[in-house]
């Protein structure tokens, strides 16, 4: 009982006599709480925010650049060739365009079509035999075909005849047109066993591949616009000299009951009660 009373007196005495020490301890504890529960987590959060701002700032700069690029895209010289590129590599099988362009360049080179078919059988197999024999000569007996998902092609078999010099010109012209054509095989039918002169009449069998674009293009809002490099610039300058076919499209239907072919006055007939 005495001991307890003594302790109580000492505690009270401590508060009375050493109140500054007690308050100092309380303030010190509060200071430590400020450090550990306030300053440290707040600094961490602020640093995180700063990092986030830097990342967001970079994204923002990219978006500003993209917006500016998009708004000034028409001023880009290369983009003016978008229609040419679409014609050279269309997004659909360019059958009509192919027929139109072949007919035009055949006329220009003064050669005549004697046959033309899609998905060739006979000529393709002859060409395949020739290339297979070539493969066996180089030791490439089996080649795994490389499937490109960004393009498709249509094989066309063609037989042309004309003067040798004109047929040669046709071979040169056929790879400089829209849509993009690549000669897969050429075979000259030489009747005599003499060397051909430019003025000789020759028949030629060709297999052509006509290319079109099949890739699914995707872009996200926050991704930057793709750039046009020097290779692409070269392509643009090369295709600008290509021949582009013009296909006439019927724009309107004439007739359709608008004209009174029999010269009847419909109003009078109605009034007469027929």
């Amino acid at each position, binding site marked *: 009982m005495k001991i307890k009373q003594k302790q109580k007196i000492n505690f009270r005495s401590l508060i009375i006599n050493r109140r500054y020490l007690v308050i100092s301890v309380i303030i010190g504890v509060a200071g430590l709480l400020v450090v550990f529960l306030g300053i440290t987590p707040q600094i961490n959060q602020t640093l995180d925010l700063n990092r986030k701002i830097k990342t967001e700032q970079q994204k923002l700069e990219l978006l500003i650049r993209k917006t500016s690029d998009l708004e000034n895209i028409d001023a880009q010289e290369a983009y003016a060739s978008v229609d040419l590129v679409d014609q050279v590599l269309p997004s659909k099988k360019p059958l009509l365009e192919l027929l139109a362009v072949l007919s035009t360049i055949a006329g220009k080179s003064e050669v005549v079509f004697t046959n033309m078919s899609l998905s060739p059988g006979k000529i393709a197999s002859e060409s395949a035999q020739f290339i297979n*024999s070539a493969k066996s000569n180089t030791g490439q007996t089996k080649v795994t075909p490389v499937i490109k998902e960004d393009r498709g092609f249509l094989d066309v078999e063609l037989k042309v005849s004309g003067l040798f010099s004109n047929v040669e010109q046709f071979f040169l012209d056929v790879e400089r047109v829209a849509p993009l054509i690549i000669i897969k095989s050429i075979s000259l039918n030489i009747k005599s066993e003499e060397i051909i002169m430019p003025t000789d009449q020759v028949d030629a069998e060709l297999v052509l591949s006509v290319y079109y674009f099949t890739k699914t293009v995707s872009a996200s809002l926050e991704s930057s616009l793709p750039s046009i490099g020097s290779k692409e610039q070269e392509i643009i300058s090369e295709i600008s000299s290509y021949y582009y076919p013009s296909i006439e499209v019927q724009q309107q239907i004439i007739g359709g009951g608008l004209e009174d072919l029999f010269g009847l006055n419909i109003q009078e007939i109605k009034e007469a009660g027929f």
Partner: protein
Amino acid sequence: MKEINFVRGRIKALTKLGQNDKKFFNIAAITTSVFLLILAGVLGFKFYFVSQLGDIQSSRENLLERIKSKEATEKSFVLFVSKLRVLSEIFSQRKDKQDVIGYFSQVFGPDVVIDRIAYDADSQLLAFGLLSKDIFTLETVFDILDSEQSKQRFSSLAKSNLQRNSGGTYRMQITIVLGKEGEK
């Protein structure tokens, strides 16, 4: 009457302790005030950053809206560049083929005719059928094919299927693998 102070020593000790305690109090108060100031500063920075982030995000939303409004233009441009890249690849393969055909159509002279050409894009093989006027022209053809210039130009060049026709002309096949050695 004289007063006798029996707790003088104790008061003196307590006064000394009180002075020390005050020192501790001052140090603790100053330190905690500094901590509080630092906390206020950090909070100030945090609020500044939060408002900056808000500004950035609102600018971002604004820019995204502008980009969305140009969606058709973007689509057209991305498609345009993708097509150019595909064309670039096809053209580089085709250029190799055209260069080889151009080389062989000039190098042999007028007495040799290329009567057949086959091209396989997958394996990058190019095969020619050559028709030579006579045995002397054929010898020239062999010399040209075996020359250092031809060896340097083509990493793989094979001759095959040599035939003599009744008219005295010679037919043979040349097979070339396109592309540079390092690319294979």
